[in-house]
């Protein structure tokens, strides 16, 4: 069974890899995007997979802190699935960046070139949240697996769960802000943060239920929780419909109505029935994410997009199955092996015996107070530094927009400090030396990132006056560009450049001002100051956040694009002059 599943996932992964490679080579132009769909499928897939990445933490950490007992194997499997889903989820926003090799530049720090990520951008929040969540999830899984044999690891298990509890909810809330903070009316909604959490938890539960069916196991409470999730999702869909007049019936059928078949005992008591119900939830949630980005109903989805969907499922399945088999002894412990049990006994999870603790005296609080204090201090220092940097560079910001960065910083620092204790206890002298070496290596890497070494585009630097470039074949000034050349250049500009630079050359507010370090306007004065050759070089070889286009467009085309941009800048200046004259006339 496992072998068949592995082959199926591999069959999905291979064509998926082809789509992924093509997407990376072509950039966002490879996806089905147009004026209605200006974010491609990768964002839908990101939201879907990050939702699935909530399952493990929800089931394991939240149940642990709420004293709901459950089988160790179920919770570890769910945590493993979380990590696999997180790996898949993290790939899609990287693709969405377009400049994948410069991904680290969305980290909120000031590098040696004076480049500072826009901390008011949801993408920067996403980056910090996923990083902190990924780190804590890995640590949590390791601690959980070791906790049976190590008392020290067991002592930080519950405190770690308390740290992860808000973090898991924070991650998906911040994902919702990617949409809620836009100017697209269909994506606006102050209820989105909770709506997204419900959707994420709901789909995560469906995934875990399918996994448990695969294991020949069952947990009735999780099935009931999934059912409650379907009701709430239905309520949110109806509320969205009431506000915006837009109801997606297909999602309602798959994610809300079909799961109600669980009430039919024949469906509920058969493994196939439970798998079908949970699969219906997954399909519904995937469609919900797709329709969110594709208001046209997903009719324009092309083969590359379908390949990316296959890539996601294939990669998840392959990673999960490999990890599951490799870690089977650690996961199962003294329990039965995968597939040997048909069904678990239908028992309710027992609750831990009630024990009263006076305020601020619980063991978790005692373990967490120092790490949390350090986390909060680090966060405050970071915010003070960021505010100073922003003010120094004259970047406008709102205090509210710094809030989403607080939780990942506090939890990451607190989690790290909390883990130091068992690490120091376990590793001994040799381990200590290895840790110091790793810390030095990490410092060197951080220095390289700070210095911008990695942002130099790989591959050979192409000269703007290279062999293929015949400067005499191009007109000397923009005024002499004939109309055919302008139309051709405009088509290339709109396909390749308008996403960031805007169709009118005045920067796309959404993609640039919110999602990247805030760039300077390329107005006429600045373009003339930089010079045409310098700008052609930038187009071909890239710079800070500009992707290198050498090899994808010819140097002539790069020069044509620069001249087209200058035309746009001239037009913008003329508009400005006319507007000023109009104001003067009005007075």
């Amino acid at each position, binding site marked *: 069974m496992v072998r068949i599943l592995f082959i199926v996932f591999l069959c999905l992964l291979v064509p998926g890899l082809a789509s992924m490679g093509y997407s990376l080579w072509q950039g966002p132009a490879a996806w089905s995007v147009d004026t209605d769909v200006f974010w491609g499928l990768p964002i839908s897939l990101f939201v879907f997979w990050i939702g699935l990445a909530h399952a493990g933490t929800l089931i394991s950490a939240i149940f642990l802190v709420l004293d709901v007992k459950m089988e160790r194997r179920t919770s570890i499997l769910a945590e493993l699935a979380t990590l696999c889903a997180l790996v898949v989820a993290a790939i899609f926003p990287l693709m969405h960046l377009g400049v994948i090799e410069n991904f680290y530049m969305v980290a909120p720090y000031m590098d040696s070139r004076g480049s500072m990520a826009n901390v008011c951008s949801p993408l920067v929040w996403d980056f910090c949240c996923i990083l902190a969540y990924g780190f804590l999830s890995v640590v949590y899984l390791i601690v959980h697996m070791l906790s049976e044999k190590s008392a020290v690891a067991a002592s930080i298990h519950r405190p770690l769960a308390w740290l992860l509890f808000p973090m898991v909810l924070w991650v998906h809330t911040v994902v919702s802000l990617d949409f809620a903070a836009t100017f697209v009316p269909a994506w606006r909604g*102050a209820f989105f943060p909770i709506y997204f959490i419900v959707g994420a938890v709901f789909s995560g539960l469906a995934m875990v239920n399918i996994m448990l069916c695969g294991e020949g196991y069952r947990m009735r409470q999780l099935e*009931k929780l999934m059912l409650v999730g379907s009701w709430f999702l239905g309520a949110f869909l109806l509320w969205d419909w009431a506000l915006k007049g837009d109801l997606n019936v297909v999602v309602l059928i798959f994610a809300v109505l079909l799961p109600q078949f669980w009430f039919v005992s024949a469906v509920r008591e058969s493994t196939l029935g439970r798998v079908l119900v949970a699969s219906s939830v997954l399909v519904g949630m995937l469609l919900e994410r797709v329709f969110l980005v594709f208001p046209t109903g997903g009719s324009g989805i092309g083969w590359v997009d379908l390949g990316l969907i296959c890539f996601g499922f294939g990669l998840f399945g392959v990673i999960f199955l490999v990890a599951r088999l490799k870690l089977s002894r650690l996961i199962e412990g003294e329990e039965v092996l995968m597939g040997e049990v048909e069904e678990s006994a239908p028992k309710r999870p027992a609750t831990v015996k009630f024990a009263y603790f006076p305020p601020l005296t619980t063991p978790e609080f005692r373990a967490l107070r120092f790490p949390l204090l350090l986390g909060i201090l680090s966060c405050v220092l970071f915010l003070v530094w960021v505010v100073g940097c922003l003010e120094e560079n004259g970047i406008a910001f709102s205090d509210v927009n710094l809030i*989403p960065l607080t939780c990942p910083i506090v939890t990451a620092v607190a989690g790290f400090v909390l883990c130091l204790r068992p690490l120091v206890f376990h590793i001994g002298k040799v381990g200590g030396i290895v840790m110091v070496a790793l810390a030095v290596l990490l410092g060197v890497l951080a220095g390289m990132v700070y210095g911008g070494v990695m942002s130099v585009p790989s591959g050979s630097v192409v000269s703007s006056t290279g062999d293929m470039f015949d400067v005499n074949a191009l007109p000397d000034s923009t005024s002499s560009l004939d109309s055919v050349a302008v139309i051709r250049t405009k088509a290339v500009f709109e396909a390749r450049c308008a996403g960031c630079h805007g169709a009118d050359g005045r920067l796309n507010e959404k993609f640039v001002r919110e999602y990247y370090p805030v760039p300077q306007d390329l107005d006429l004065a600045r373009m003339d100051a930089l010079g045409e050759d310098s700008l052609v070089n930038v187009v071909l070889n890239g710079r800070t956040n500009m992707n290198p286009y050498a090899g994808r467009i010819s140097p002539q085309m790069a020069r044509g694009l620069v001249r087209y941009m200058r035309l746009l800048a001239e037009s913008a200046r003329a508009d400005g002059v006319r507007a000023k004259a109009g104001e003067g006339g009005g007075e």
Partner: protein
Amino acid sequence: MTPLMSSLACVMALAQAFFLWRGKIRLLKEGLLLFGFFVISCVFTLLVGSPNDPQLEHYPLQMLALCLCFSTTSLPRYRRRYLVMAQALWFWVVLFGGISLAYRGIEFPWARALAILALCCSSTLLSRISKEMEFCLMVFWIAIWILF
């Protein structure tokens, strides 16, 4: 929304809270009740407010959070924990709803968010919660709901 309707929403949340966690706590029963309360809150918001008012987009969620806060006073065990969690949910709704709206030019409700946060943090210091303290907490929640 008018202050009168806002007060009515508060009373509705209080009334709904009465039905939660009564008798044996069952997942499907409590889930169904919460779902029902959420739908009722949505209908109430639509009836008394305008769907075009962005500030009402997360109003039903706030009503549900307030209902959960009230309901924690009737819990038999772990009251402090769930009290803090219910208030954290309310804070969450106000905070992130406010951030979404701030992007659309609507002022962030600092006073309400900070009041809920302060109450949530100070609730962690509560020892065994007496009837008098339950009453005080409910008064504080109602005050935050109506005044801020």
